[in-house]
C-alpha cells in the first residue's frame, strides 16, 4: 500500500516536472537559471533604473515581506474567493442552459441568437458597464467572472449533450433507461469530456476577468495589489503580484488535471491506451 502511494507521489512529481520543463529537465532548468541571472545582472548593471526593473533578489525579498505581513495572503484569498464564486455560478448556469438547450429544440431556437450575440462580445468590454451597474464591490467582479465563464461551459455542454453517441443511447434504452434516467445516467456522463474541456477553458478566462475587474478598483485582491503598487512606484510589488498570478493560473490548471486523473481516470484514456488483444 505504502509503495503504491509512494509511486503515485513520484509519478505526480514527475508529471509536475514535465509540465514545467518539458521532456528535457536539465536544459529547461538551465534556461530558467540563465533568464534569472540575466535579469539580475541587467538590474544591477546601472544601465537601468533599478526602481523600474528590480532584481529578482529584491523581488523575492519583497515577496517574503508581503507574505510575512499577511498582506499577500489576504489579497490572494479575496481573489480566490471571487474567482471561485464567479466560476461556480458561471459554469453551473452554462452547464444547465447548455444541457437544456440541447434537449429542448424550442428553447434552443428561442435563446440561440441571443446567446450567440453575447458570446461574440469580448467579455472584458463589459468591465466598465459592470462597475457602473454594480459598483466596485464584490458583485461586479463575481458577475463579470460568471459571465466570462458561462460561454465556454455553455458551448461545450451544448455540443456534448447534443452529440451523444447513438450507440450508447440504444444500449442504455435496451437496459431500461428512460426519460430523466437517460439524461442523468447516460447523456450527461457521455458529455463529460466536452464539458470538462469547456470548464478548463473557463478556468483561464476566469483568471483574466478576475484581474481585469480588480484592476479597475477593489479593496483587496492580487489585481488590486498590482494596481496599487503602480500608484506608489513599488515595481517590486508589481512583480510579486505578477508572479503570484502566474502561480495561481498554473496551480489551478494543475489541480484540475490531477482531479481529473483521480476522479475520472477514464478521461482521455480511450485514445491513449491501445489495449492488446486477449
Amino acid at each position, binding site marked *: 500500500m505504502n509503495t503504491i502511494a509512494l509511486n503515485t507521489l513520484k509519478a505526480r512529481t514527475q508529471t509536475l516536472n514535465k509540465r514545467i520543463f518539458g521532456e528535457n529537465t536539465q536544459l529547461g532548468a538551465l534556461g530558467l537559471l540563465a533568464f534569472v541571472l540575466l535579469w539580475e545582472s541587467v538590474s544591477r548593471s546601472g544601465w537601468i533604473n533599478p526602481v523600474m526593473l528590480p532584481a529578482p533578489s529584491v523581488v523575492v525579498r519583497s515577496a517574503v515581506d508581503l507574505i510575512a505581513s499577511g498582506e499577500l495572503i489576504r489579497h490572494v484569498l479575496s481573489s480566490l474567493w471571487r474567482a471561485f464564486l464567479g466560476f461556480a455560478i458561471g459554469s453551473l448556469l452554462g452547464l444547465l442552459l447548455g444541457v437544456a438547450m*440541447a*434537449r429542448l*429544440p424550442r428553447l434552443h431556437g428561442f435563446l440561440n441568437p441571443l446567446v450567440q450575440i453575447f458570446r461574440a462580445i469580448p467579455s472584458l468590454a463589459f468591465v466598465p458597464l459592470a462597475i457602473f451597474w454594480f459598483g466596485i464591490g464584490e458583485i461586479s467582479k463575481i458577475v463579470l467572472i460568471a459571465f466570462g465563464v458561462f460561454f465556454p461551459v455553455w458551448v461545450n455542454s451544448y455540443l456534448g449533450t*447534443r452529440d*451523444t453517441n*447513438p*450507440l*450508447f*443511447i*440504444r*444500449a*442504455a*434504452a*435496451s*437496459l*431500461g*433507461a*428512460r*426519460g430523466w*434516467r*437517460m439524461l442523468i*445516467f*447516460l*447523456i450527461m*456522463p*457521455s458529455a*463529460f469530456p466536452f464539458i470538462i474541456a469547456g470548464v478548463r477553458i473557463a478556468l483561464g478566462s476566469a483568471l483574466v476577468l478576475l484581474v481585469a475587474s480588480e484592476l479597475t478598483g477593489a479593496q483587496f485582491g492580487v489585481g488590486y495589489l498590482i494596481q496599487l503598487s503602480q500608484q506608489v512606484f513599488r515595481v517590486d510589488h508589481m512583480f510579486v503580484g505578477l508572479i503570484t498570478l502566474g502561480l495561481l493560473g498554473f496551480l489551478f490548471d494543475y489541480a484540475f488535471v490531477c482531479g481529473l486523473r483521480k476522479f*475520472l*481516470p*477514464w478521461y482521455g*484514456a*480511450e485514445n491513449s*491506451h491501445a*489495449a*492488446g*488483444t*486477449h
Partner: protein
Amino acid sequence: MTSEAALIAFTPTEDDSASRFGQLFPNHSPSQRAKDGRIGTPKRTYRRTSPDTATARTVAETECPLIECRDLAHTYHTRLGTQITAIADITLSIDASEFVCLLGPSGCGKTTLLNMIAGFLAPTAGTLRLNGEDICGPDPDRGVVFQDYSLFPWLTVESNIAYGLRMTGMSAARRKAAVGALLDLVGLPHIGAQYPFELSGGMKQRVAIARALATDPSVLLMDEPFAALDALTRESLQRQLLDIKARTQKTILFVTHNISEAIFLASRIVVLSSRPGRIVEDFRPWADFQPRKRTSPEFNRLYERLAQAIGVEGTE
C-alpha cells in the same frame, strides 16, 4: 436529440420489471443451483436437449412462439428521396431456448431485422411479437450486444454490468452479487474494478454479454458481436458463447455474415437474400450430440450449402 426522442416516444408503458429481476437465471433448476453453490460453476462441455422434448415443453408452457414475425418489412427513404426496402416478407417464429443465426451478405437487412426486434426501429409493415405482445420500443426483456464496443467508458466493468439493474432500482448489495455471478459466467471474475479502456476487444465483448444478460432478458440479440475481433479471439469467444448458452439456456438471435461462425454456433440457421432481405433457407444444421468440429466433412458440406445459398460460393 431526434433518435432519443424517437426512442422515448416508442416507450412501452407497462413495467413488470420488479418480478422479472427476482431471479438471475430462472431456467437454472433450484436443485442444481443448490448443488453448484453458485450459478457460475464451469461446465465445459456443450450439451443440447433433444429438439422434440424442447418443443414439447415450449408448447406446454406457452401457446405462442417466443418471437413471431409475420410479413415483416422495413422500408426507409434516403436523403435523396428514393425508397429502399431493407427487408420484405419476413415470416419467422423463434421458440424459447433456440440459438438462431441470421446469416446473409452485407447489406441484406439482417441488422435491420435485429434492430426491429430490439425495438430500435419500427416495422413499416407486418407484425412483430414477443410472447404474444407487440414489440414497441427497446426493453430490458431483450438484451442487445452490439458490433461496436458499446460499454460506457465512464463506468467501471462492474457498473457497466449493473447498469440495467440500477435502472430498475435494485439495491447496491443485490447488484453486487448479481454482477459477481455474471463476471464468473463470462469467465472474467477479477476485472470488476477496471475501466473499459483497460480491456482488450474480446474482454469488452464478454463484458457486454454479461451486461445484456444482467436484466435476465427472455432473448439475447447479438449483432455481429465478434466481427471486429481477430480470428483466434473470435473462435475462443464462440466457444465461450456456447458455454454461456448451455448454462443459461437463453434464447439467442445472432446476426453474422460469417458462414463458419453460423455453423459452429447455431441450432438453427436462417439465411437472408440480398436486398430486399428475404428468407431463402431456414434449417437446423446439427443432429443432436453431434460434435461441431470445424474440420469435419459435415462442417464443410454445411459450408458449401450455405455459401451457395448466399451466393458467394467457397469464399467468405
